[in-house]
């Protein structure tokens, strides 16, 4: 899938950079370090802007092209920041046959953004994810770590409502 690259300027803090350097130092002898370091970098920054990728590349002594190649290959790596509340709708088969596609459409309509986008105020982002394995609760969506299951399209406004003023 084509990844959306963020146009929001990068704003990393010195603390974040220090943490990243620690992670790099810990993994530098591992021949397969790029993926685990990127995973931890994403934990630190929330996403992987080109500035962070550059730091990883320089720190590990691998070409930026290789780091960029890895970060664009795997769906877990985000090149644009997520909203304060990231809504992730499961589009695994079990959820899809029970109507999760309609739920994604409803969210997209209500938030005015497409999947893999973030609202302009940075509050909500929307992702379509693969199976999270809670097929017994299908169709399922998650808002950050909160799981909502056995949904219908009519549940969508109520869920969004919960996060309006927070």
């Amino acid at each position, binding site marked *: 899938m084509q990844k959306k690259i963020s146009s929001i300027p990068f704003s990393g803090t010195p603390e974040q950079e220090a943490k990243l350097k620690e992670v790099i130092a810990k993994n530098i002898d591992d021949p*397969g370090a790029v993926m685990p370091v990127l995973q931890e970098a994403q934990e630190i920054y929330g996403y992987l802007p080109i500035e962070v990728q550059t730091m990883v590349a320089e720190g590990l002594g691998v070409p930026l092209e290789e780091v960029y190649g890895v970060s664009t290959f795997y*769906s877990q790596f985000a090149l644009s920041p997520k909203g304060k509340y990231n809504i992730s709708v499961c589009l695994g088969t079990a959820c899809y046959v*029970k109507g999760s596609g309609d739920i994604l459409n409803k969210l997209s309509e209500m938030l005015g953004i497409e999947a893999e986008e973030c609202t302009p105020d940075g509050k909500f982002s929307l992702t379509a994810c693969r199976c999270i394995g809670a097929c017994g609760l*299908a169709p399922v969506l998650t808002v950050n770590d909160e799981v909502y299951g056995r949904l219908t399209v009519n549940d969508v406004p109520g869920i969004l409502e919960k996060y309006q003023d927070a």
Partner: protein
Amino acid sequence: MYRSNVLVCGGTGCTSSNSLQIAEKLKEELKVKGLDKEVNVITTGCFGLCALGPIMVVYPEGSFYSMVNIDDIPEIVEEHLLKGRIVTRLLYQETVEEDTIKSLNKTNFYAKQKRVALRNCGVIDPEKIDDYIANDGYAALGKVLTEMTPDQVIQTILDSGLRGRGGAGFPTGLKWKFAAANDADQKYVCCNADEGDPGAFMDRSVLEGDPHSLIEAMAIAGYAIGASKGRVYVRAEYPIAVKRLQIAIDQAREYGLLGEDIFGTGFNFDMELRLGAGAFVCGEETALMTSIEGKRGEPRPRPPFPAVKGLYQKPTILNNVETYANIAQIILKGPEWFASMGTEKSKGTKVFALGGKINHTGLVEIPMGTTLREIVFEIGGGIPNGKKFKAAQTGGPSGGCIPEEHLDVPIDYDNLLAIGSMMGSGGLIVMDEDNCMVDVAKFFLEFTVDESCGKCTPCRIGTKRLLEMLEKITKGQGTMEMLDEMEELCEFIKANSLCGLGQTAPNPVLSTLRYFRNEYLAHIQDKKCPAGVCKELLEYKIEKDKCRGCGMCARKCPVGTIFVTDYTAPGMKKPAYMIDPAKCIKCGACMDTCKFKAIYKG
């Protein structure tokens, strides 16, 4: 010693509906009542009956509480655990008989199952190695290291007839034999725990419910092929599995069951986790190894096979979680025992993740050779809401849709291939009359187009062209020639793709064309979607004799396309409304609004 044990399911399905908070509340309540020294609360792995989660079982009675709410806990503690009166209203209804409760093993869901790979799931506390050891854990590793030669181990696995549970069904013993035959300074044992097939979650359940069975089996494999290092490639999307597996590895190290000189035999074996990052193609063995090396997970041509040049160019074996989960039992109970289950060419049991339009969503483990009808209608409890069965989909994006006429085929690797599907990792999604098979084929193609790594042309471009044709058909722009073109393209992609992803990607299209051709024809010739799924082919209509003229739909309509007519139905006070099909955007808001069910789509 405790007088009662309460098992609370801590699998992902149940924790998603707050089972961990329920366990906490339970401990709290027990403490309040002073029962915390008498009643033990154990968080286990998945019980399998996810549809009824959160699940809780109280022993020694074996009372099976389903869909437990946190507010029910005080009542269960007060009535059942303090006063000994089972709270019948919260029991799984099928276990309730007039004056007694039925054992869980006798319910339809469990009676036909045979649990080998899942034997400890929902039974032991996965975060306690002692629980595993008490259930014969690590006895097989001990037996192998002290009583058997590596060749004998391989022969045992060969004799059992165990075939890979990850999809293609390659004989596991043979894989081990090839890797054992290659001399090298370093060999690797890898585990594919990157369960990418959407709708399959059996590997996750083993990792969450019985992680030590994987560690033990990988150590046995290490001894058999002469490897001292293991790698588990696990999905980052499975945080509970990752956590419990790491705990298990640490505990095994602490007990000397991983590391150097295991059981004082001079055998060394240790293992590490590698987290995947969401790429379906990494389920392919060469792609998975490339990914463990930290690179883009692209497959490479075989030969050389991993048994010759695998991870870091060293001889490597790669098996899937469920395959490993069978190993210790085969060693302990003997290959004959394992081979006595199943069909001629597919031995043992298989775990299926039942999902979709089925009453008992969850995990089931059945002997090979069980029919789909038994799984769907007996174990699975049939289709909800009295709908009609249309198809069962196995093998995920690599598999096919099986129609009703093949429901009585005994399930094994070869039979599924013969009817145009495949075993795959064991996802089994049931579809009813409301699912459109052209839309399902499109759904899987969207998945493969997204997940194609792009390395080889037939897969990268071929699947895209297939998807474009399917999109046209679902929009009513299909032609009859397209069906032939699609079939031809499918065969081409199958024959020419580099890896399993591309070689199997056309299966959903081919199988739906084979069994549900009439649905394609309806989309192409009549411009209709019989299941009412494909939006462009739908028309919303108001049944004029049911319409009471309340006008709710007209007010809800976002594009103002509903207007009042001059027809008033007999017995109604106001004139009926009508939808202008030319302006309708088919959002369905009117249908949701109508209280009198006067609006339908067709």
